[in-house]
């Protein structure tokens, strides 16, 4: 089996991985264990919580999720600079202990992980500053979610609610729009 290289999520060292998804890798440098984010190999999974991806894999619908992310979320294009900036910034805040990753993810694909603020702080996306308060939840917002909540930045901050229905982005009510016939 040909080994591939992934970056340790803890120390940033390059370690070898046999490419088996769902199998943890132990970093030979710092000793931490992590599930290789497919982001190291496939950009399409950049925003997806590994647990959510594993759910689709277990249900035999990983292809459906990938298609949804690639075409409904990414609209057939790449992630924007602000999307990538969000990932880098939230990971930095996590390393600094300002936010922690919660044991839950956003119910709609690409099912980004939820972070919880451990203290008041600011998430910087270029020129934009997104202020958050202790115990607030932070999640990446897809373009449709931004439209829905009138967000200027790809980040939703607030007190999120429990959700029982796992949905693809293309199943959101505002995935398609029309114009109702005028009543006058």
């Amino acid at each position, binding site marked *: 089996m040909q080994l591939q290289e992934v970056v340790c999520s803890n120390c940033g060292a390059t370690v070898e991985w046999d490419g088996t998804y769902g199998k943890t890798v132990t970093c030979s440098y710092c000793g931490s264990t992590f599930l290789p984010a497919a982001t190291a190999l496939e950009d399409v999974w950049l925003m997806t919580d590994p647990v959510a991806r594993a759910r689709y894999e277990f249900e035999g619908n990983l292809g459906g999720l990938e298609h949804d992310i690639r075409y409904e979320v990414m609209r057939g294009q790449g992630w924007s600079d602000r999307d990538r900036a969000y990932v880098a910034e939230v990971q930095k805040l996590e390393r600094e202990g300002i936010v922690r990753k919660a*044991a839950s993810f956003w119910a709609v694909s690409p099912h980004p992980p939820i972070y919880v603020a451990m203290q008041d702080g600011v998430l910087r996306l270029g020129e934009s500053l997104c202020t958050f308060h202790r115990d607030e939840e932070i999640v990446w917002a897809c373009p449709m979610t931004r439209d829905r909540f009138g967000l200027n930045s790809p980040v939703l901050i607030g007190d999120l609610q429990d959700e029982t229905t796992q949905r693809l982005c293309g199943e959101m009510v505002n995935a398609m729009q029309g114009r109702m016939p005028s009543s006058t």
Partner: protein
Amino acid sequence: MDILKSLFGTSEYVSRADTIPDGPETDPEDVWAFTDPDARDRYEREGRLRDLEWDIRFEVMRGEGWLEEELLYKHEIQRLLRLGAVEDKGSYWYASPFPTVYRCTRDGIFHLGSQEFPFKSGDDIVFQCRMAREMNDTPYKPMLISKLQPTKNAMLCGEMGNAMKGMHSK
């Protein structure tokens, strides 16, 4: 295997709990480290062991190893078992990974690193997964010390209400 344990095992080895007092250090990758053997047997009999294993590996362990505080919990349970301060209650928690419930046989202190949590004789102690900890607003306290009640409804961790989040309206 159980017959061999019964015939040749010591009192520790016939235990049906998730932890034995003089067991080895917990392997951080051991998916079954916090599962009561009776619960595992039940899923195996029902042909759903793969579902349970997947649930523990991804929903409970989040695709990582067991966390430091979780390993500390296990270590402390071993110590308390050796002291005789807790014992296997003969039941397990209703949600995966279905950890063994321990009954306190006397008043004492549960040490978790530098933290101390008092317990009283008759209290129950049970491991709590990350999602349950978040529901209880105790993200770094991997156990519940309380008097537990019987329930009939078993649940996988991924079925818990806060596994996913959303926002219903602006």
